[in-house]
C-alpha cells in the first residue's frame, strides 16, 4: 500500500509519467479531473459557507499535512501565505526530481471550484524550490 506519507512522491511521479507519455495537456486534464471528482468536499464547503468553508477546508488539510503557513480570513477575502509547502518539503527531503510544473496544480485544482461561487482566486509562486507561495481569494465585485 502506498502510505499517505508517500503520496506526494507518488503524485509527483504520476505528473511526470503523464507528461512524458502523453504531454502536459494530459497532466492539466488530470488536475481538472481531480478537481471535479475528488475535491467535492471543498466544493460543498465553499458552496455552503463561502470564505468560512475555505478556512475550514485548509485548516484541516494543512494541519494534517504539517504545513507552515499564515491564514487570514476576512469577510470578503481569504489569504494563505505558505511559508513551507509540505509537498515541496517532502520532495526536497527525499531528494527526488520534482515535476517542473508541480506547483501549478494548486492553481488549477482550487481556482476552478472557488471561482464558481463568485470569488476571484489568485496564486503567486514566490519560491517554487522551497515551497513559498501566496493564495489570495476575494469576493468578486459586480
Amino acid at each position: 500500500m502506498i502510505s499517505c506519507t508517500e503520496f506526494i512522491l507518488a503524485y509527483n511521479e504520476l505528473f511526470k509519467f503523464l507528461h512524458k507519455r502523453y504531454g502536459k495537456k494530459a497532466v492539466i486534464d488530470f488536475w481538472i479531473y481531480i478537481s471535479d471528482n475528488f475535491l467535492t468536499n471543498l466544493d460543498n464547503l465553499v458552496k455552503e459557507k463561502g470564505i468560512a468553508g475555505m478556512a475550514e477546508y485548509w485548516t484541516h488539510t494543512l494541519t494534517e499535512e504539517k504545513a507552515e503557513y499564515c491564514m487570514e480570513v476576512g469577510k470578503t477575502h481569504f489569504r494563505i501565505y505558505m511559508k513551507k509547502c509540505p509537498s515541496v518539503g517532502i520532495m526536497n527531503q527525499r531528494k527526488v526530481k520534482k515535476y517542473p510544473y508541480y506547483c501549478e496544480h494548486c492553481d488549477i485544482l482550487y481556482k476552478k471550484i472557488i471561482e464558481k461561487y463568485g470569488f476571484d482566486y489568485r496564486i503567486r509562486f514566490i519560491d517554487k524550490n522551497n515551497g513559498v507561495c501566496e493564495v489570495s481569494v476575494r469576493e468578486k465585485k459586480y
Partner: protein
Amino acid sequence: MEEKIHKDFHGALSVGFEYLAKKFGKKSLEEFLGVCARSIYKELIKKIKKEGLIAIEKYWNEIFSLEGAKFKIERKKGELILKITECPAISHIVKVGYPVYDDFCIQCRVINRVIAEETGLKSEISSDQKKGRCIQKFKKEIQ
C-alpha cells in the same frame, strides 16, 4: 497514540488510478505503478538487498502502525507474511465517501512484484478489496 496523518490522500490516489485506467488503459496504470515503485521504494530496495526480509518487516510495521491498520506479521523460515484485516486506505476512503477504484489493490500487487524482482525475492498476494483484507508474502527464491 495514532499520529495525525492526511488520510484523504488515499482517496486522491484512488481517483488517480481511475483516471489513468479509464483514459489510457489498465496497462498504463500498471506501467505507472512500476515506475512509481522503482522510484519511491529505491531506499527500501537497497535495505532489503543489505538486510533481507527484516527490512520489509520493519517497513510494514512502521507504515501500518502509522496508518492505524489492523494487521499481523508472521515470520517463517525464509518467508514473511503480512495479514491485514482492515486496510487503512480502503477503510478511510469508504468512511469519507470517496469512490474506491475497482482494482485499488493493484498498487500492492505491482509494487510488491517490482520489489521482489529488484531484490531476488518472490511475492504473493491474495486480497479481498470489498472487505479490505489481504495476505501479502515475500519469500526467498531458494530455500
